[in-house]
């Protein structure tokens, strides 16, 4: 299958970027502590919503990942700390060689704290191998809202995701109970691309998850209504309740359609775990 692909580069070439971010509440303020290893960097924190919410922006200075590259994230929210973490640009996963590019993340959120993990989309080139693996541990009085948007193949260049493989695993625990387990494996093929069971000809898939409390029917209805009220909804969407949370899925042709809906859902959900209104990070306003 991959016989035409160039052999592995020398082992020393692969990056292993790391970011360890700890957020601690000191009085009114959430104070970040960051340790990073290239090519990951963290920009200076922003406080657009006041001192309790720290916005951190991660920057990938190498511009993209090739096979064999790894990124490790370790995010720790101490009691009552509030943080929004995003990325400065879309991630690119290049088609390179049969080794996967790997992202591993661990998240711990202590009582009274919450984390929003809202990265920009990842563009997985056709033929690329991309594995991501996230484990989120939430205390009883803690919340996590995360999203993940993938563009599979550069459609503008005529790519379809008929080769390559994406493995994406999210595992979210709340108060010691496994709430959401999402182990996806998308093996690029014509059938995966075309089938309504798989991608249905759509290059973009997106997931938004909130875990921390049981959502009311009204919230579920409101999140669905936001989708239905999109001026020109491209693609299809679904919303459902988790045991202690809410899940949205998008499958379509447009990262901006996914992002527009997800931003509005995030803004709708924010009051359910915080008394500050959600302010869009400046880095998204390209």
């Amino acid at each position: 299958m991959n016989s035409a692909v160039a052999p592995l580069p020398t082992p020393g070439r692969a990056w292993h970027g790391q970011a360890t971010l700890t957020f601690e509440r000191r009085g009114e303020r959430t104070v970040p502590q960051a340790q990073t290893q290239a090519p990951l960097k963290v920009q200076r924190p922003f406080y657009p919503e006041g001192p309790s919410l720290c916005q951190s922006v991660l920057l990938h200075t190498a511009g993209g990942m090739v096979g064999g590259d790894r990124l490790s994230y370790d995010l720790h929210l101490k009691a009552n700390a509030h943080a929004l973490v995003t990325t400065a640009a879309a991630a690119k996963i290049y088609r390179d060689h049969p080794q996967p590019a790997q992202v591993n993340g661990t998240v711990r959120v202590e009582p009274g704290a919450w984390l929003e993990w809202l990265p920009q989309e990842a563009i997985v080139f056709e033929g690329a191998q991309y594995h991501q693996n996230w484990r989120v541990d939430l205390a009883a009085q803690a919340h996590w809202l995360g999203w993940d948007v993938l563009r599979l193949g550069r459609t503008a260049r005529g790519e379809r995701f008929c080769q390559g493989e994406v493995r994406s695993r999210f595992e979210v625990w709340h108060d010691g109970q496994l709430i959401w387990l999402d182990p996806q494996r998308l093996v690029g093929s014509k059938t995966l691309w075309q089938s309504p069971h798989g991608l249905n000809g759509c290059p973009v898939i997106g997931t938004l998850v909130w875990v921390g409390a049981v959502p009311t029917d009204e919230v579920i209805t409101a999140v669905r209504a936001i989708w239905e009220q999109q001026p020109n909804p491209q693609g299809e969407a679904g919303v459902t309740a988790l045991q202690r949370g809410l899940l949205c899925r998008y499958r379509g042709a447009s990262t901006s359609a996914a992002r527009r809906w997800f931003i509005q859902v995030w803004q709708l959900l924010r009051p359910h775990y915080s008394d500050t209104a959600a302010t869009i990070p400046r880095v998204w306003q390209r």
Partner: protein
Amino acid sequence: MPFGHESRFMNLQLTQGRLLTLLQLSSPALPIGAYSYSEGIETLATQGTIATGSDLFHWLSQELNSGSIRLEAAILRWSYLAASQPDFEALARWNQWLSALRETAEMRSQSWQMGRSLLRLFADLEPELTEQLPGFARQGDCNFAIAYSLVAQAWQIPLEEAAIAFLHSWAANLISAAVRAVPLGQTEGQRLLQQLTAPIQTAHAEIAAMTEADLMACNWGVALASMQHEALYSRLFRS
């Protein structure tokens, strides 16, 4: 292999008595409400995505080939082995995994309701065997695949036959749902079930070889269809 004492249970023979019990356990006539669920097929029929027998065949073979029914069937096997030990802690863990793996609230309710109904029926048929079941199995959130494995193990039905019959029974139920929702002819439905014999056997063999690291699936189509089912205006089915 997650368990060490497997060989002991591989020696179970499918006696005529056990075959008949398995036919009863996997029968669509078992009163556990399976007929009232479509797992998103009603949405797909409404949208026109599944309009013919070949659309349905494609959908079900994709599910067997890469979908989340594989995760259920794999966990069913591990749960059967845990029940043979018996290892109640492992059983409770697999049950929690299945609840967390279900795509949607509707499919989670379906799995819990069918699990509950099966265990209630089993308690009426086998009051003494029921006393040996783990405590969580009486709490109402026992997933169907777990309940099925508990009952199959208690009745000493060999694992391989119990597991492949589970897949067959799943396919038969969804075909029956599609026959009503699309609609399709009864003969067409039976033809499709027969055509699924090979994909079911392939999936069964692959699932038997799975380890925890292989617990992955592609569920985009099913998840969206099931989520949209929850918002359908007019519904015949409960999922």
